[in-house]
């Protein structure tokens, strides 16, 4: 399964869920596959995809999907300790980590840190599900099973081959990425009758 196939599967599965894509090729590919307002594309701040997604999830009390990269996550593992800190208040977050062992967007340097180590930290941090898949069929089965029977607080390592054809950089202005995403969140929350009121703490 290559990175594009994995992204297509994930995007097709969650058309009505807020999704945060990490910086680099993952965001570019997601934007090229389908640009919709429930997508937040990062172009910098490498390593912060999960905190951003957690912020949306805890603020709205809704399920959020984060599509991260192994290199990005290795750069900022404190996002995993954040999950631990949130404890019982931890969000419904499906945290995909597309694992190809390379910093694909900068020329293919080897990622420092292994998927096994990161998965171990995720398990200790309190994700309800920590699992892996390396085929489209396996990923689909895993998602279906856990959504029905376990939890939506999941850390899923998806082994992929590096990207072949990489789309160009985002053409959408960054303030519009944020504004469209925020507007979509607001409309979605109204539809789900979730009140955006100040809460005590996170």
């Amino acid at each position, binding site marked *: 399964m290559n990175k594009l196939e994995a992204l297509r599967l994930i995007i097709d599965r969650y058309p009505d869920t807020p999704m945060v894509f990490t910086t680099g090729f993952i965001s570019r590919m997601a934007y090229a596959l389908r640009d919709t307002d429930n997508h937040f594309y990062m172009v910098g701040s490498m390593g912060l995809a999960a905190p951003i997604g957690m912020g949306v999830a805890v603020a709205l009390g809704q399920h959020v999907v984060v599509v991260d990269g192994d290199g990005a996550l290795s750069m900022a593992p*404190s996002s995993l300790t954040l999950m631990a800190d949130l404890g019982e208040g931890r969000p419904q977050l499906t945290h995909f980590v597309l694992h190809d062992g390379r910093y694909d967007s900068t020329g293919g340097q080897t990622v420092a840190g292994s998927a096994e180590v990161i998965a171990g930290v995720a398990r200790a941090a309190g994700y309800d599900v920590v699992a892996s898949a390396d085929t489209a069929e396996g990923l689909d089965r895993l998602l279906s099973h856990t959504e029905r029977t376990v939890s939506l607080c999941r850390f899923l390592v998806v082994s992929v081959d590096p990207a072949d054809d990489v789309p160009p950089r985002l053409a959408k202005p960054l303030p519009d990425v944020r504004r469209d995403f925020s507007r979509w969140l607001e409309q979605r929350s109204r539809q789900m009758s979730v009140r*955006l009121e*100040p809460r005590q703490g996170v």
Partner: protein
Amino acid sequence: MTAPRKADPEGLASDLHALGAGPFLSTPCGVLAPLHAALVPDGLTTVAREDTALGLAAGIACAGRWPCVLMQNSGFGQSVNAVASLLKPYEVSVLMVISLRGTGPDHTLENKGMGSVTRLILHELGVPTVDYVDGRDRENVTRQLAQWRCDTGPSAMLVHPAAFGWAT
């Protein structure tokens, strides 16, 4: 000119709540410890790293809140890129409360560098700032923050070391 007055952390916390700021995220800082303590009863989340806190705040802001992140300027130093490549270009409204270690009565060498460049970096990034030197600034700061509440993008309140009483 009136005599300096120690800032009231409970008063400042109350002002921030009244302005609609929140939720509150914090990373460790001795200067801001009184404000941190004043915010805990109403809910404050400690985060391990400043850039992680800013990422979390960005997600919360996208969802329509005005989150506030407390940090020391040393921590701002290691999270500059989160401001430069996330908060600023995406116009994400997050209020940063940043202590100015290495300035005024704080002569610690390890903080001198960030003491010298914090304001400059924020200025170059286009992040508006307001100074909280001591209790006399309460009204001015509140007035400024009320304007930023409606603006788009990050902003910063710079808290001087002696604001809540400097301990050497």
